[in-house]
Structure formats: C-alpha cells, structure tokens
C-alpha cells in the first residue's frame, strides 16, 4: 500500500510537470492577450497525435520532440493571424472562436487519425528500483524533459530581446507600442510559443497516456486550474500549482478512486479561488 502511494505520488509529480509546461503556454496567451483559449487542450492532443504519426511513419519517437512543437508554433501563428487578431482580443469573442477552433481540430483529427484511442510504446524501456518499487525510466525522462523545457522558457523570457518584449507588452501594451516594440509580432510569437508548448507537452505525455482526439477536453480544466491557483500572470506560481495539484491527486488516488481524487482537487481549487483569488503564491515569488 505504502509503495503504491509512493508510485502514485511520483506519477503525480511527473504528470504535474507536463501539465505545468502546457499551462505555461495557456498562461502567456491568457496574460498577454486576455484570451481565454478553449482550444489549448486540443494542441496538447495534436502533440500526442503527431507523436503517434511520427512513430508510425519514421519508426522513431525522438523526431516528434522537434516536429510537434514546430507544427504547434506554425498553427499558433496562423490562428492568431487569421482569427484572434481580427476579433481584436475581445475575451468573450475569443471564447466562441477558440471553442469553434477546438471543434474543428478534434474533428480533423477524428477524420484523419480515427476515433479509436491508441497507445504508443515508450521509447525508453526498462525500470529501476525506487523505494522498493520498479519505476519506469521513461517517466523520469518525461519529468527531466519538462523541467528542461520550463527552465528554457524562463531563460528565454528573462534573457532574450523577444522575451523582454513579451514581458513589456504584457505589462503595458500602449507604452510598449509607443517605445517601438512591434506589438503585433509579439502577439503572433506568443500564440506560436504557447501552442508549441502545449504540443511539446503532448509529445512528452504521449507514451504515458492514450492518443485520442478527446484528451484535450480532459486536460483543459486542469491547466486552467493551475493558471488560476498559481495566480493569473504569475508564471512560477503556475508551475508550482500544476505540480502541487497533480501530486495531491496522485496521493489521494492511492486511497480513493481517481474520480474522488479529482473531486478533492476541485474542492481545494474552489477554496483557493474564494479565499485567495489572487492565487496561492501571491507575495511568495518575485
């Protein structure tokens, strides 16, 4: 029993890190553009599907780590350019537009990939002993890969010119524009990066979840929770909240059904929203 809980808790942390990566993408789109992106989960799903396709056509898993984020980036830029820009970042309209987009993405995947869920073999086989349980190496790889991607994203945001522009536009759009920052390009880039991160999360998660055109619908509320519990606009908070939520759900699912564990984290979430709507970590970071 104890060993099961250890395994579930570590599984929770691994999954939380993947969710953190996706939620960061959601958060920069949310924070920078005030867009409620209901299609974000579907880009995660597209990532898993692209992994499956890469594996079946090339016979290799690893190229997907590059292919899926690139396609995600291109799609993100396309969506921002062709849809979001035209509705002038109006939040209510963005809900309708991204809901429509979500329907289209799911349907296109169902048309081309099929409706039946599929599983893929993990590219790293083998297990190792961990606190008396046999733990899969791939999950460790998934955690490390997510951490690298998250750290890389924060370095990008802090150290590069484009990252500084993104923070400037988020802070004060008008002043940033007046200072000569090409705001429209920053928007395009933000959407691209956000979708690329969701797709990358999909690639990393693909061997440990199922590949199914509906997975985006399940993961979306979880990502929004991480963004809100972490505090809107608080990116390190988002990461912490994602890991914490997934860890708690993992531990609780050692005692109860996953559904009860999900209910528990939702109740916790509403508690945080009501008591600290500014997020759990306000004042602790920065």
């Amino acid at each position, binding site marked *: 029993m104890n060993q099961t809980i250890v395994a579930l808790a570590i599984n929770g942390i691994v999954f939380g890190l993947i969710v953190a990566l996706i939620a960061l993408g959601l958060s920069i789109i949310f924070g920078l553009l005030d867009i409620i992106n209901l299609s974000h989960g579907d880009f995660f799903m597209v990532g898993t599907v692209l992994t499956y396709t890469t594996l079946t056509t090339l016979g290799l898993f690893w190229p997907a780590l590059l292919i899926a984020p690139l396609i995600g980036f291109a799609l993100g830029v396309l969506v921002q350019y062709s849809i979001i820009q035209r509705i002038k970042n109006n939040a209510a309209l963005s809900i309708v537009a991204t809901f429509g987009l979500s*329907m289209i993405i799911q*349907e296109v995947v169902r048309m081309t990939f099929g409706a039946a869920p599929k599983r893929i073999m993990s590219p790293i086989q083998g297990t190792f002993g961990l606190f008396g349980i046999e733990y899969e190496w791939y999950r460790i790889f998934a955690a490390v890969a997510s951490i690298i991607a998250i750290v890389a994203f924060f370095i990008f945001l802090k150290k590069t010119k484009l990252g500084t522009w993104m923070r400037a536009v988020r802070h004060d759009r008008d002043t940033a524009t007046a200072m000569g920052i090409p705001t429209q390009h920053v928007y395009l880039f933000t959407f691209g990066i956000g979708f690329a991160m969701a797709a990358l999360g999909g690639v990393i998660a693909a061997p440990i979840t199922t590949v199914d055109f509906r997975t985006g619908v399940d993961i979306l509320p979880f990502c929004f929770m991480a963004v809100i519990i972490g505090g809107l606009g608080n990116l390190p908070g988002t990461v912490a909240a994602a890991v914490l939520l997934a860890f708690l759900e993992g531990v609780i699912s050692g005692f109860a059904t996953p559904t009860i564990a999900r209910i528990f984290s939702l109740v916790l979430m509403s508690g945080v929203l009501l008591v600290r709507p500014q997020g759990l970590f306000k004042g602790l970071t920065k």
Partner: protein
Amino acid sequence: MRTGLGYAGLFSALLLAPWLITWLGDPFWLSILTEIVIWSCFAASINFLFGYVGLLSFGQALYFGFGMYGVALGITELHLSFWPAFFLGPLSATVIAFLTGILAVRLTWHYFAIITVVFSLIMYFLALTFKSLTGGDDGINFSLPDIALGGSYKVSLTNATTQYFFMLIVVALCFWLIRIVMASAFGRSLIAIRDNDVRASLIGIHVYRLRLAAFVIAGFLAGVSGTLFALFGRYASASYMFYHVSGEGVVWAIVGGIGTILGPAIGTGIFILIREIVSSHWQHYALIVGAFAICIVIFAPEGIVGLWKKYVLKRGA
C-alpha cells in the same frame, strides 16, 4: 410597435409550426423544433447572466443537469405524478443555484467563469461517483406519466404535437419572465451593475445581493430547460453536466446576440439546424459548426441580432 409586431409574428409562426411541418412533409422536423425551443431556454439562461449582469458562467450545465435529474429521479425514485416531478426539476436547480451562487458571485469575470466550471465539474464527478443513483454517463431512463389537467382530463407528451406545445408554452413563459424582469427596476439595476459595478454600488445598489438574485434566476432558467429536455428524451444523464454543454450554450448565446431577448433563441436555432441538416449528409458536421462560429465572431461580433439591426432595421428606417 414594430418589435411588438415582430414578436406576434414569430409567436404565431411557432404556433402554426406543427401544421406547417406536417404540410411540408417530414414530422422529424417537429422534434428538432421542439429541441430548439428547449435549448433556447438554456442559452437564455447564459445570456441572462452574461448579457444583463456581465457574469460569464461556464457552469450552467450544472443547473441543466439538476433540472434533468430532478424530474427523472422524481419519477423513478419518488414515484411522483407529472406535476410534482415537473416542478421538482426547476426547484432543485434553483436551490443548488442559490447554494453555489452564495460563493460564486463573490467573484467576477475570469474568476467567476472558472469557479462556475469548477462547481459544475465537482457535481459532474459526484454524479459519476454515485452511479447507482444517477446512472453516470449512461444515464437513467424513465417512462412518462400522463399530465393531469384538472378533473379526469389527461394529455400525454407521447403525442409529438402536444409535447411541442407543452415545451413552447413553458419556454415562452420563461422568455416572458425575462422580459418582465428586465423591464423592472430590478432589471435596470442589473444593467447598471453590468455597465459599472462600482458606480452601481455608489448609488446604493446592493451589488452582491442582486448578482445572487440574477444567478438564481439564471439557474432556474437552466433548470427549466433541463427538466424539459429530460421529459423530451425520457432520460437524464450526467454527461449533460459536463462543461462542454455549458460551452456550447455560451457559443449559441454569443453568436445569436448577447444582451438581446431573442438572440440566444436564434443562435440556438441556427446551430441545431446546421447540425441536423449537415449531419444527415456528412458525418463531419462539427467542421461546419466550428467554422460558422469563427466566421460569426470575425464578421458579426455583435451576433446575428446585431447584424440584423445593422443592415435590416437601418435600411428600413
């Protein structure tokens, strides 16, 4: 005057619809029209909160679900006759809207949208957990009791035309209720809160209490549509509590025209018609529905009612 004539025209068209549809051929469309009427009330519930109070709820499916289960469990578990079961649906939705509203309306905008999703997800997962009572995603079926209309006179909803008129009358009463509410001082206070809640509170409007009242009314409306839908399908299912159902309602309301009385009904009608017409020819109808939603927000951000006002009414004036 003109709008009054418009309403009268629309209502008489809806009254004549069963005969028009029979005359045109396929009685299948009468059940589609019934479905549109029922879901219009759901979209109206979302519009009531978002269009008139400025609160975007992503959890109205919760109250829809309580309406469904109220009537279904009333018939299967409590063995109620038609009218008590019929009132149990909206009543349970209203009660739960009040209880969740106490907490939810303390928040606004993004936070409000998220907490309504969270509440509806909690109830959805609870419904899955108590599968023996709710049937989970598979749902529970029931058979319809007859409607007693005083004395020994009874009608049954198994007749498609009776069913249609029953749903139409109930939903028309709900739309009439919305009109009355919005014409009252209470309704104008809601608009004031929507436009500027700080200013509203400064002129003495109790923002929290009014928001809560509006939330309960919206929960009632969603509960009515859930009740009607359960009667229509003779079943209740937890899957209707999922946030995707709420999301669809939000899309219908915004596409139709937020903040207008008939907009939600028009949006609902168009989306259900597209679904029914396209799905019989092409299984991937979701592509058309999604593309349509995107085109509307790009080319008609005020919704279809806004488009109508801009082009048809202006030209007439």
